[in-house]
C-alpha cells in the first residue's frame, strides 16, 4: 500500500518546464468558409451546393469534450502528459466539496507501477506535481529509466485526501543503458560486452559501458542534425551576429541592334537576335582589359559592320 502522503518534489525549477498551451495566432486560413464557398462556386454548378453548407472550422478546437489524460514517453527520464477535463466535472466537484474545493490544489500524481498490475492502490511509490489551473499539459521528470508510470490528474484537498479526476494510460520508459539481463544461451562476459557496446556507438574498444552512450549524446550524432527533413529550407545560412560584410561585383551589359535577319557575333561567338533585331548580352566583368568585337553580317553576306568596345576594369 502506498502511503497517502504528498511528496513534495524538490527539483530545480528549471527542470520543470511548464509548457503553456501553444496556440498559433489566428491566421487567415485558406480553407475558411468563404474561400470554400468561392471554390465551390468555381468548380461546381451552384445548384449542387444548394444544401446549406457546413461551415469549415477555422481553428482547431480547444478540447474534444472528453475527460482524459494521456501519457507519452519523451526519453528514459521524461514523460509528457496532456489532459482535458470538461468544466462540468469541476462544477460537480465544486458542488460536492463546497469550501474545500477552493482550498484544494490541482495535482498530477505520478505512480511508479513497474512490475505490477496497478489497481490504484498498489503503486511502488508516487509523487505529486502541483499544476496551475490553466495548464493542460506537463513534462514530468520521472528520474526513472526502465520503469512503468501511470498518472492521475486530480485534486489534493487541504486535509491530504486525493480525489482522482482522470487516470492515464500506463507507459514504460526505456533503459538509459544496457540491460543487466543476460541470456544463458547467448552468454557474453561483461568486459567483452563493454567492448562491443563502445564500438557500436563508434567510440573504440575501451569505452566503459554506459559512457559511450553519454559520449554520443554530447557529439550529437543524430539524423537531422546535419540535414533537415527532406530538403533544405530555402534560406541562406545566417551569418553570425555583428559580422558586418560587403560584397561588390561588376557585370557588363553589351546591347545593340541591327537588321533582324543579320548574323551577329560577339568575340567571335554567334549570338541570337530578338525578332526586332536587338540583342543584349550580360557578362561578369573581372579585373583587366576586355576587347569585345561585335560584328554583324547582312543575311546576303554582302555587308558587314564591326564595332569593338574595349573595357578596362580595375578594383581599388
Amino acid at each position, binding site marked *: 500500500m502506498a502511503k497517502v502522503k504528498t511528496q513534495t518534489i524538490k527539483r530545480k525549477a528549471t527542470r520543470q518546464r511548464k509548457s503553456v498551451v*501553444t496556440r*498559433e495566432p489566428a*491566421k487567415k*486560413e*485558406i*480553407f475558411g468558409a468563404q474561400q470554400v464557398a468561392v471554390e465551390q462556386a468555381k*468548380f461546381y454548378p451552384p445548384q449542387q451546393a444548394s*444544401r446549406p453548407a*457546413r461551415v*469549415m*472550422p477555422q*481553428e*482547431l478546437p480547444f*478540447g474534444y469534450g472528453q475527460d482524459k489524460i*494521456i501519457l*507519452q*514517453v*519523451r*526519453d528514459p527520464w521524461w514523460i*509528457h502528459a*496532456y489532459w482535458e477535463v470538461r468544466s462540468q466535472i469541476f462544477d460537480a466537484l465544486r458542488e460536492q466539496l463546497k469550501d474545500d474545493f477552493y482550498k484544494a490544489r490541482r495535482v498530477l500524481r505520478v505512480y511508479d507501477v513497474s512490475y505490477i498490475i496497478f489497481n490504484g492502490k498498489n503503486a511502488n511509490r508516487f509523487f505529486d506535481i502541483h499544476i496551475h489551473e490553466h495548464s*493542460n*499539459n506537463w513534462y514530468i521528470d520521472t528520474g526513472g529509466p526502465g520503469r512503468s508510470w501511470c498518472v492521475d490528474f486530480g485534486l489534493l484537498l487541504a486535509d491530504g485526501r486525493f480525489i482522482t479526476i482522470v487516470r492515464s*494510460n500506463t507507459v514504460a*520508459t*526505456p*533503459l*538509459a543503458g544496457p*540491460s543487466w*539481463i*543476460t541470456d544463458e*544461451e*547467448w552468454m*557474453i562476459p561483461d568486459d567483452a560486452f563493454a567492448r*562491443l*557496446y563502445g*564500438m*557500436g*556507438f*563508434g567510440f573504440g*574498444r575501451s569505452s566503459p559501458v554506459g559512457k559511450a552512450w553519454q559520449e*554520443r*549524446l554530447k*557529439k*550529437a*550524432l*543524430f*539524423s*537531422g542534425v*546535419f*540535414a533537415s*527533413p*527532406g*530538403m*533544405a529550407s*530555402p*534560406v*541562406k545560412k545566417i551569418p553570425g551576429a555583428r559580422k558586418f560584410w560587403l560584397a561588390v*561585383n561588376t557585370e557588363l551589359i553589351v546591347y545593340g541592334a541591327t537588321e533582324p535577319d543579320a548574323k551577329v557575333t560577339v568575340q567571335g561567338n554567334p549570338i541570337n537576335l530578338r525578332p526586332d533585331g536587338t540583342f543584349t548580352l550580360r557578362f*561578369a566583368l573581372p579585373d583587366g582589359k576586355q576587347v569585345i568585337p561585335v560584328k554583324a553580317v547582312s543575311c546576303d553576306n554582302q555587308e558587314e559592320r564591326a564595332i569593338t568596345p574595349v573595357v578596362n576594369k580595375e578594383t581599388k
Partner: protein
Amino acid sequence: MNKGYLCLVLHCHLPYVRHPEHENFLEEDWLYEGITETYIPLILLFERLLNDGVDFRLTMSLSPTLISMLGDRLLQDRYIKHINRLIELAHREVERTRWQPEFQHLANMYLGRFYECRNTFERYHRNLADAFKSFQDAGKLEIITCGATHGYLPLMEVVRPSIRAQIKVAVSHYEKALGAKPRGIWLPECGFVPGFDELLKEAGLKYFFSDAHGVLHGSPRPKYGVFAPVYCKGTGVACFGRDLESSKQVWSSIEGYPGDYNYREFYRDIGFDLDYEYIRPYIHPDGVRINTGIKYYRITGSENKQPYNPCAAQEKAAEQAGNFMFNRQKQVEYLCDFMGKKPLIVSPYDAELFGHWWYEGVMWLEFLLRKVVFDQDQIRLVTPSEYLAENPRNQVITPSLSSWGWKGYSEMWLQGANDWIYRHLHAASERMTELAKSYPETGGLVKRALNQALRELLLAQSSDWAFIMGTGTHTSYAVKRTKDHLLRFARLYEDIKAGAIDEGWLSDIEYKDNLFPEIDYRVHQ
C-alpha cells in the same frame, strides 16, 4: 572468403507536398531539388554500375509519399518546367561567365547535368520509381517501405490503429507501385517501441532497422552488439542495429567527410549571389531569393571562398571512399576475431544527404561500391534479406524504445514547439477508429468520405511537420499543413456522422490530397 558484411541503407523520403491550387509553390521545390540532385544522380550511378557489371548491393527505403509524388502527373509536368527553367538559366550562365573561365566550366557542368536530368526523367517516362524498381528487379537494390506518410510511430502508441494504418497502407502501396511485397521497413525516424514488431509481423514484414541503442539497450543483452541482427521476442521480426562508427564518418558535422574544404559549398548559390534583376525569373515568383542549385564555390575553410574544382573534389571523394573501406576492413577484421563470427556493419543514411547536401556524396558512393566489389575480399555487400537467408540463427531479444532523432528518443517530435499537435492527432485517430467500426461495409459517397478522412489523418501525421516546428524556423507551413489536414478530417467526420456529405467539397479535397488512390479506411482498426 569475406570476414564480414556491409549493409548500406539509403532512406529516401520527402513529405507529400503538392498544391494544384497554386501555380508555384515554394515547398514543392523540395521534390524537384531531390530529383535533380539526389534521385537522378543515384539512378545514373546504378545504371553505370549495372553497365560495368558491378555486382553491388544496396538497400533503399522509398517512402510511400515520395513514390506517390514521383508518380504524380501534375508534379511530373511541373518538374519538366522546373528543369527547363534551370537549363535556360545555365545557358545564360555559360554566356555570363565568358570572361571568368574558373566559373564558366562549372556553368557548363551544370548545363550538362540539367540536360542529363531531363533526359533521364523522360527516359523513365517521368516516373523515377520505375527506375528504382528496375534495379530491384536486377537483384542489386533491395527496396523497403516506410510509414505511409512517415508518421512518427512512438507518439501513436495510444492510438494503435493509426500505427496499423501507417504500416498497412504503406505495404499495399508498395505492392501496387513495385509489384512485390516489401520484405522490410524503415520505421520513420527509426522510431521503435517494443510491441510494434507485432504490427510489422501482421503486415508480413520480416525486418526493420533501429538505432544502435535500440539493440544495445535491448533485453537481454545482445551478445553481438549491433554487429548481428536480433529477432524480436514473440514475433521473430528481425531488427538491424545501426553501426555508429561508420555513420559518424559520414554524418558528423565536425569530423564527417562532407565538410572537406575541397567539396562544394552548399550555402553559396547564385540564387542569392547574383544581381536581383538578372536572377529574378529563376527564383520564386514572389521575389524571394531561393537556391537554384548552381553553386560555384568550394567550402575552402574560410570566408574568402575559392572557386570549386571538380577534379580536386573527385579525388577527395575517391580518397575518402578508400578511407571508409579501409576502416570497415579493420573493423570487420577485429570484430570477426572478437565475435568468432562474421560481423554485419549496418550503415544507414538519409538519401538526400547524397548529392543535395553533400554534392560529391553520390560520387563517393560510387567509388565505395566499386572498390568494395573489386579491390578487396574482407567485406561483402549484403542486403538484410540476403544476410538473414545466410544467417538464419540469431539471438532473440526485446529491443528498446529508440529513434535516430535528436537525443535518440522522441524529444524532437515532442517538445514545447510541437506538443500541442498530439491531442488533436490522437482525437482524430480515435474518431477514425470509431468511423471504421461504424461502417464495416459501405459504398458510394460515404465510402469516399471515409477513405478521404483516412488520407487526411495520415497526412496530418507526417513526422516532418512536427520536426519542422521543432527546428523553430519556417514553421508556418508545417503548422498550416497540420491544421489543414486536421480541419479537413474534422469536417469529414462531422459530415459523415450527420449524413450530410458535401460532394463538391469532398471532390475538391480528393483532388488536392490525392495520394493513395486505393486506400481502404478499414485498415484503421
